[in-house]
């Protein structure tokens, strides 16, 4: 697993299962967003006999398969928050009651507003990132899983477990299938916004902050660029 520290300033942060999850999860999100968009706005019509094609069927299959993988991945990630190292729980349990945490958030906001010259050092995620990941990614994903399975249960029928567990209460809650579709679609865009910000900030921090970011998610090692506290 963790071979040798690449430098004396390095700390092992992301363990192997977590890095695999991150990669699989990213792929799932791409597949889900692309196929989801194509389900709402399908590709140009194909010609010939219906029996010769299964385009929409394959797109929907990819969406459902990726959705299952995504859900199982998130459940695994929740397990890993407990089984993994101390950094693994930040995603699910940000220290929202700690005053120190909110001071960190405020510091990060000023850092991104160009008001602070020197960034802080963080072993795991910086507090602002933790906040965004928790509320946009985790809760956004839970919302997508619940509404997604509710829509899936419509197709699998009223005797399916998906219908019993999700559709039966989600559809009346939103006032019908059409509204659930709209919300599922809107939150897709919310997650896309998160991904754009997430990737941009990761690249920016890698260049400007005092620690490695991009290489960390690949190797697991957080390398600090200086010895100052």
């Amino acid at each position, binding site marked *: 697993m963790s071979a040798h520290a690449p430098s004396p300033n390095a700390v092992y942060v992301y363990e192997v299962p977590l890095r695999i999850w991150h990669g699989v999860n990213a792929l799932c999100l791409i597949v889900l967003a692309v196929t989801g968009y194509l389900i709402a706005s399908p590709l140009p*019509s194909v010609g010939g006999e219906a029996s010769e094609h*299964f385009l929409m069927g394959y797109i929907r299959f990819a969406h459902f398969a990726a959705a299952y993988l995504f859900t199982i991945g998130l459940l695994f990630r929740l397990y890993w928050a407990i089984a993994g190292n101390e950094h693994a729980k930040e995603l699910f349990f940000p220290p929202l009651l700690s005053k120190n945490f909110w001071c960190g958030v405020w510091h990060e906001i000023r850092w991104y507003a160009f008001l602070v010259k020197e960034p802080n050092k963080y072993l795991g995620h910086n507090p602002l990132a933790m906040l965004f990941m928790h509320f946009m990614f985790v809760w956004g994903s839970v919302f997508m899983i619940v509404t997604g399975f509710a829509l899936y249960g419509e197709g699998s*029928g009223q005797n399916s477990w998906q219908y019993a567990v999700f559709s039966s209460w989600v559809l009346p809650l939103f006032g019908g299938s059409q509204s659930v579709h709209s919300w599922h679609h809107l939150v897709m865009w919310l997650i896309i916004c998160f991904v*754009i910000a997430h990737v941009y900030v990761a690249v920016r921090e890698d260049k400007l902050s005092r620690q490695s970011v991009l290489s960390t998610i690949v190797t697991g090692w957080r390398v600090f660029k200086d010895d100052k506290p």
Partner: protein
Amino acid sequence: MIESFYDVMRRQGITRRSFLKFCSLTAASLGLSPSYAATIAEAMENKPRIPVLWLHGLECTCCSESFIRSGHPLAKDVILSMLSLDYDDTIMAAAGHNAEAIIDEIVDKYKGNYILAVEGNPPLAEDGMYCIIGGKPFVDQLKYAAESCKAIISWGSCASWGCVQAAKPNPTRATPVHKVPGLANKPIIKVPGCPPIAEVMTAVVAYILTFDKLPTLDKQGRPQMFYSQRIHDKCYRRPHFDAGQFVEHWDDEAARQGHCLYKMGCKGPTTYNACSTVRWNEGLSFPIQSGHGCIGCSEDGFWDKGSFYDRLTTINQFGIEANADAVGGTAAAIVGAGAAVHAGISALNRAKHVDSKQPGAE
């Protein structure tokens, strides 16, 4: 002695043969095995007819029109004999005070045994003054009749969900039956649709008579046997959807070939009804079969879900007419542009920072 449904039908000139056909048809549409046709026939012959009080609130009478225009003469006669005899202000012979007296009579005579069928809904604004029947607000008549009924059937989307008169901004506060405050606590069967399918309506009443209980309802209060599947799941054009063959314009080749109407805004994938199985006018056709997408008329608030011809719902909260893609795409573009600008400023700052840090470098 109270007469049976069979007595009424015979008096209307329906032959026994036709009566038995009706029983088989009803058993089939309820999803029961053929042996139940005999059970239904026996119930129809021997049990006293269920009196039905049919009230009209704010509505367009399309539910009644659906019955009397039913292509199936047998079904039509059955419906008329079953439902309209006691009180239905559109088709009954009596008028004025005589007609209104029938309501009191039924309420007294059949206390706790009659079915209250409601077509349309009461407007609650201005104490219900937007719908006056016999000099009184409809909401009062509804509450009075509901007090002693056995069960309420909400016919059509008006009674079930509110329909067009309850669409935003709903100036008269038209309110579906189950949301009327102060209404007696009775079981409510929603039979939504604008209008509902005639065969579905008779089958619901036949079920109550035959089995002495209300049909199984889903979470939203609709009979499960007719509203448990989407139009889309039983649509005969579904293979074209799975293949990715869509009508893109009303006059293109795909439209002539009868391909999927998804891109033309068909609401089949989000609508629960029996149109694609029972169909309309003696099983002749239904909207999608005639080349137009489903408009989702049996769904809650279908008037407020945007155009009939768009898949994506219009979202009015954002001031201008938008849909999920317009809202989300704009948000993503703003975040992306924000990131780009931020990156530019960051790079500039860094360049300055490096310059000032190493003054002697140049």
